């Protein structure tokens, strides 16, 4: 594997750890966040399977990308996630209940109490990159903050991605573009998506630094993202960070990946997934034991279950809510329709 990693698949330390990765609390926080994301994921899938959630995109196996990136951000930065970065959203303060609401088909899930400046999930692939350039433009005017957008390997084929990367370069914008290269875009493997040697290489087209890291190593993700954010914050412009992970699940609950990829491939990648290696490291170096693990699993389980309960107990918005935030004030033209919708 050419990309930078600090821990190998079994949790062995490969090179000098960055400072933050020597702090047990930090590592525990990262591990906790990944377990929390995975717990959320499992519950979301369960809800979907029983008809109580909409189509859902699992982040199974990619928790290190999302969490590592978010953990490298400052509170006032802006996160612009794709639809698969639940771990990062949770880290930033979006609640599991809000996420359930969103995936359950309720716009109120995007009105999170947490990071008020963060963008909602971006479903149209790669459109978040131009948004991030715009957020970074606003930040450049005030000198505060960094825009951090994440998209998938597939997203690197969209013109939006490239146009945005180019303007980030041309204008020295404080933006970091992260690629969660989970090696699949629905049924298309990374190798067929593009002939580029790495996705990080695409930064060359914009004259930006590009870096590839092991996306299963949350330390590597956080470290590389933090360096990129640091450069952006210091006025040194943007960076493209490719995190090589693997999509262990189906594309979404509407997908059946067994149609297009071998179980053997998936099994092999289970050996590299991000939680186990950090747990091994915690066990070996920081006295993490069964008690800690059990307590963590239990608390995550309880939190997510309670959030799901609250989500399920939330009544839908009334029909006329579909007009409530169309404009700052509803034009007369549309007001009559709002009335009709309200009447049923």
């Amino acid at each position, binding site marked *: 594997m050419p990309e930078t990693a600090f821990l190998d698949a079994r949790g062995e330390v490969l090179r000098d750890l960055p400072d933050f990765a020597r702090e047990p609390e930090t590592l525990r926080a990262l591990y906790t966040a990944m377990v929390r994301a995975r717990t959320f994921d499992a519950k979301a899938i369960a809800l979907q399977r029983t008809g109580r959630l*909409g189509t859902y995109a699992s982040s199974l196996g990619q928790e290190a990308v999302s969490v590592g990136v978010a953990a490298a951000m400052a509170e006032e930065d802006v996160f612009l996630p794709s639809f698969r970065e639940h771990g990062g959203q949770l880290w930033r303060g979006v609640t599991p209940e809000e996420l359930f609401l969103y995936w359950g088909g309720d716009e109120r899930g995007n009105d999170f109490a947490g990071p008020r400046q963060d963008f909602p999930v971006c479903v149209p692939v790669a459109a978040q990159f131009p948004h991030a350039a715009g957020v970074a433009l606003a930040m450049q005017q005030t000198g505060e903050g960094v825009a951090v957008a994440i998209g998938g390997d597939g*997203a690197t084929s*969209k013109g939006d991605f490239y146009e945005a990367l180019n303007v980030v370069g041309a204008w020295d914008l404080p933006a970091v573009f992260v690629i969660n290269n989970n090696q699949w875009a*629905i*049924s298309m493997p990374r190798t067929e*998506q593009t002939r580029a040697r790495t996705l990080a290489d695409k930064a060359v087209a914009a004259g930006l630094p590009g870096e590839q890291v092991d996306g299963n190593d949350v330390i590597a993700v956080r470290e590389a993202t933090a360096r990129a954010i640091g450069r952006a914050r210091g006025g040194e412009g943007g960076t493209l960070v490719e995190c090589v992970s693997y999509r262990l699940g189906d594309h979404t609950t509407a997908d059946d990946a067994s149609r297009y990829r071998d179980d053997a491939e998936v099994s092999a990648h289970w050996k590299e997934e991000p939680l186990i290696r950090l747990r091994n490291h915690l066990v070996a170096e920081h006295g993490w034991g069964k008690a800690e693990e059990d307590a963590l699993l239990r608390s995550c389980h309880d939190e997510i279950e309670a959030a799901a309960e609250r989500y399920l107990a939330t009544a839908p918005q009334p029909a006329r809510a579909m007009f409530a935030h169309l404009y700052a004030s509803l034009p007369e033209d*549309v007001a009559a*329709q709002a009335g009709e*919708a309200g009447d049923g």
Partner: protein
Amino acid sequence: MAEHTMIDAIRMALSRALDEDETVILFGQDIGIDGGVFRATNGLMQRFGSGRVRDTPLSETVIAGMCVGAAAHGLRPVAEIQFMGFLYSAIDQLANHAARLRNRTRGRLSCPMVLRAPFGGGIKAPEHHSESMEAMLAHIPGLRVVVPGSPTRAYGLLLAAIRDPDPVVFLEPKRLYRAGGEPVEDTGAALPIEQAEVLQEGDDVTLISWGAMLTEAREAVETLADEGISAELVDLSSLKPIDRATLRASVEKTGRCVIVHEAPLTAGLGAEIAADLAEHCLISLLAPVRRVTGYDTVMPYLRLEASYLPSTDRVLRAVRDVMEFA
């Protein structure tokens, strides 16, 4: 004969087209081994090879743009856009290039391409997956826009679209993909691409609709029949050009008209039809033409989706309105 759903019928037409004309080529996201997110191309790559049924990178602009180049150079590309919400990135190539290549070159080059896209709501899909923006496309000169209303029509109209010498956007009402089957014979016969179809004759009022909303329109027609109101139901089918003659003839007969579509009201295609009928059938009209449409707001997420889509009730209310107008 076996029953076929609309998605089967579409696959049958694609398969037939690949079979009968070696210049036909399919591409799009996940249409190969995965068979397309709705399985419209299921098995076609296996049968016709990955040279003729190709997975593209995730690039809608180049999907549309490649159609133009390939069509101008002798192929008949049939490309898929996964959902209409992702078709916006293809509009530039459609409007600026596909729709005018023949015109610009005085017929020297042409653009026999089909861009397929599922459209419309009603299947509780994620946001941006339920668009119904056909009116935007119907405004583009030089394009054809076709929407099938049943498996049989899907088969015949898709073959017509593929054989047509000009660019066609073929919008597939995804709510109907698996909504019900009917026998569809794989005869290779195309249906006339420009014609609206009178699905049911009637005397008192004309209902005009297309795509998935034909379901509500049909339900309304049945209820009305019980009430002794004889409604004529027309499936527009060709959204561009519009078969104005058929629509006018129907309204001249019935004197009343309700148009039903899922897209937002304002500048929706219902406006064109209503304006045309009001202008050309004024003498025959016994009541104003009414439109029952999606609201002028963003399609809500799935919890409120049903409140957005025109219901049979709303259609019935509009029909009763025009029936009672005096």
